[in-house]
C-alpha cells in the first residue's frame, strides 16, 4: 500500500533523477533482488528533520520608500471614510436630537401658555368684584359718599392735562 508520502516521494524522485520514471524503477528492482535479506526501508526513513537556527538579530528591514506613503494613504482613506460616514449619519442624528429638542420646546411652550392662563385665571379671581367687596367689608372700607366724589373740571387754559380721553 502506497501512502501519500510514498507517492509524493516517487514524484519527487522521478522529477529529481534525470531520466524520470524510466530509470528509477530498475533501481528498486535491483535492490530487492540483491538485498532480499535486508529489511525493507521504512517509508520516509531517509527524511530527517533538523532545525536550522537563523539569527535575524543583525538583519534590518530593507527600507521601503513607499511604506510611509501607503500608511498615510490608508490613514487618509480611513479618515475620509469616517468623515463620509459621519457626514452621512450626522444629519439624521442631528435631526433626531433636534426633534427631541423641538418636542421639549413645544412642551415647554404649552406648559408656559397653560401656566400663563392659570395665572390670568388666578388674577381674575383675585380681582373679582365679590372678593374685593368682601375684603373691603373686612377692612371697614365703604363706597364713597356722593359728597366725597369730586370730578376734576380743569379750566380750558392748557394749564392742566385733561384726565380723560
Amino acid at each position, binding site marked *: 500500500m502506497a501512502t501519500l508520502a510514498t507517492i509524493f516521494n516517487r514524484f519527487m524522485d522521478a522529477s529529481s533523477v534525470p531520466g524520470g520514471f524510466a530509470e528509477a524503477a530498475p533501481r528498486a528492482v535491483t535492490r530487492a533482488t540483491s538485498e532480499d535479506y535486508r529489511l525493507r526501508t521504512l517509508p520516509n526513513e531517509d527524511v530527517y528533520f533538523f532545525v536550522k537556527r537563523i539569527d535575524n538579530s543583525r538583519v534590518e528591514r530593507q527600507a521601503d520608500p513607499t511604506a510611509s506613503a501607503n500608511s498615510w494613504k490608508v490613514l487618509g482613506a480611513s479618515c475620509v471614510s469616517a468623515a463620509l460616514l459621519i457626514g452621512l449619519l450626522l444629519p439624521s442624528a442631528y435631526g433626531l436630537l433636534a426633534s427631541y429638542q423641538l418636542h421639549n420646546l413645544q412642551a415647554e411652550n404649552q406648559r408656559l401658555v397653560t401656566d400663563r392662563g392659570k395665572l390670568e385665571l388666578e388674577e381674575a379671581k383675585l380681582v373679582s368684584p*365679590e372678593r374685593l367687596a368682601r375684603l373691603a367689608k373686612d377692612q371697614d372700607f365703604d363706597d364713597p359718599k356722593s359728597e366725597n366724589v369730586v370730578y376734576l373740571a380743569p379750566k380750558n387754559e392748557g394749564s392742566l392735562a385733561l384726565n380723560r380721553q
Partner: protein
Amino acid sequence: MDARAEPLANRRLRILARISFVWGILILFRLVSLQVFRHDEFQRLAQQQQDREVQIQAPRGVIFDRTGRPLAMSLPVDSVCINPLRVPDLALAADLLSRILEINGDELLGKMASAVDNHRGFLWVKRKITPEESVKLRSYHLDWVEFRTESRRFYPKDSVGANLLGGVDHLEKGNAGIELSLNEGLEGKPGVMRTTSDVKQRVIDLQIFTDPQPGKNVTLSIDERIQHVAEHELAIAIDRTHAKTGSLVVMDPKNGEVLAMASYPSFDPNVPPTPGESLVSHTNLPVSSPFEPGSVFKVVTLSAALETTHIRPGTIINCGNGKMTLFKRVIHDHHSYASLSMADVLAKSSNIGAINIGLRVGEQNLYEYVRRFGFGKSTGIALPGESSGRLRPLKQWIASSIGSIAMGHELSATTLQLARACSVIANGGMLVKPRMTLTRQHPDPKMEIIEPTAAAVRILEPETAITMRHMMEGVVLHGTGTKSRLDGYTSGGKTGTAQIYDFKARAYTHKYNSSFMGFAPLNNPAIVVVATLNGTALMGGDAASPVFKAVATAALRYLDIPKDLPDFVASPDDGKTESNDLAIADLAAGNPLDEEDAVMEAAAANVPEPSSQSPAQLPPAPLQTRPAISQVALITGHKAPNFNGKTLRAVLEQSAALGVQVEFTGSGLATGQQPPPGTPLRQGERIRVQFAR
C-alpha cells in the same frame, strides 16, 4: 506541519463557509421578505406602535367685559383614562383611584369589570380633574393610567353674570346664555397632528395635518363692576321685600349697550348642576320672563298722548275722585283725586287719570305707539330664549282693553323691553336695539371686529321725549318714586306695581310685580336702569326704587359721569311721599293677560257705550294749580322770579340767568306762573308759565 491537518482545516473552513453562505442567503431572503414583500404590513405595524394621531387643542374663546376683564376662559386640564385589560388588580386599582380622585370606588370597580368582560381596552375614570388630583395621581407612576388633555371652562367671577353668560356642556359647547348664542365664534376647531415616538415615547417627529383654529375672543358690553352691584343690590332687595324673583337691566340709552343684566336667583357656573335643581336659577329673567308691567307703562300712554292729542303736562285730567266705571268695570284709584295735571297723573301714578288719557289717545293710536316702543316683539339681542312679550293685535282688544293697557295690563313685557322703552325717553325719542357684544376677535389676533350698532329709529319727537323726561323727574322729586332720588344727580323715572294673577284661584293676589324704570342724569342721560321684583307685597316705589338708587349711584360713579347737582343732606321728611302706584286696584272683572281669549271675547260681548264722563269730552284745561308740596327736600337758594307780563324771550333770558328751568304754555305775554313769584324753588323744580295774548 502535519500533512493531514491542512485538508481537515480546509474542509472545516469550507463547511463553515457554506453554512455562512446559507445563513447569509437566509438572512438576505428574510431581509427581502421583510423589507420588500411584507413591507406594507410591517410599516403599518410600526406606525401603529410609533405613530400617533394627536388632537391639537383649540381653546374656546375668552369672554371679556367691556373693560377687558375676563368673565369666562378655558384652560387645559387632565382627564384620566385607563386600559382595564392592563390593570393587574381591579379591586386595588378601583380603591386607589377612588381615593385619589374622590369618586365612587364600587361604581368604578363595576365599570372596570364590565370593560374587562367585554374586552374593552378603554375607560374614562374621571374627566377634567383638578391640578392637585393630577399631581397626586402622577406621583404614583402607574403605567396603566393614561392622562389626556382636555379643555375646561372657568368662570373666574363665579356667579357674576352667570345667568347672562350661561354655560357649556362637557364638550365645551355652549348650552345657555352668551355661551350658546355666540357658540359658533367662541368654539375653536381642534387640529390634528401625527407624532412619531421612540421606544421611550419621546416624540422624534411630528407632522401637522390640520392647523387648530382657536375660538375667537368676545368683548361684551357688560361692565363687571356694574353687574356685580346690580346683582348685589337685587339680592338685597329680594331679601328685604321677600320677593321670589327679580331682574334688573342697566343700559346705555344712546346706543343700547347693556351695561348689566342681573337675575335672581342665580347660580355658580363653575359648579355642575345637580339633578333636580330648579331651572329658575339658570334662567336669564330679564330677557326670557315677561310680566305685566303695570304703571311703568303709563310712560308709553302719556308719550302717545303728547304726540296725538292736545294734552300737555299742565292739562288737567279728570280722576273721578278715585272711582271710575269703564264698560261695567269699576276701577278704583289707590288715592282719590278729583283731578290732576297730566304731569301729576304720572307722578302720582293715577290709574283713572292714565285711563282717561288713554281713552283720549284712542285704541288705534295707543296700539300704534305701544308697537313703536317695541312691545310685542323681541329686541333682537344676542341672547337665546328671548321672549317677545305679549301684545294682542288690535282686533283682539275688547272694549276695556284700552283702559287696561293704558296702565300696563293685558300685555306683558320683559325687563329688557322696558329698558329699551325707557331709553327712548332718555335719548330723545330714538328706539335703539339692545346690544350685548362690542367686539369679536379678528382672525388676525392683532385686530378686532367691531360689532356694528344698529341704526336707531325715531319714534318720538324730541320735544315729546324731553317733556316726558321732565314729567318723569316729577315722579322722583315728588311722586311715587322719591326713594329713587339720587345724591348729586338729577334723575327721572316711573314706578310700577302690577298685581299677580293666580290662575288657580282665578283672581288677582296681593303679590305684586314691583318695578322701577329710570334714567340719570336728566339732561343728558348716561344710563337707564330698570328693576323688577316679582312676588313681593311691596309697591314699586318701596321695593324697586331703592334698587334703582343704589345701582344708578354706583354705575354713574364707575362710568365717571360728572354730577349735575350739588350735594345735599336729605330732609327728615324724605321718603314720606306716597309710593302707592298699584295699577290694578279692584279690577273685579279684570282680564289677565294669560287667561283664555274666550274669556276676553265673552266680556267683549257685553261692552256698553263709553262713559259719559269720558275725558275726551272734557274742555281744554286751564293752567292747573300744582298740588301743595308737603316735602321740600332740597332748596336751591333760588326763589321763583316774577315773569308776569313778560315776553317769551324775556322769560327765557331771565330764567337762563338765574339757572331755573321753565315750561311754557301758550303764546304772547306771561299771564300766570306756578309756583308763584317769591316761592323758594326745590332742586330741579320748574316754573310753569302761562302765556296769553
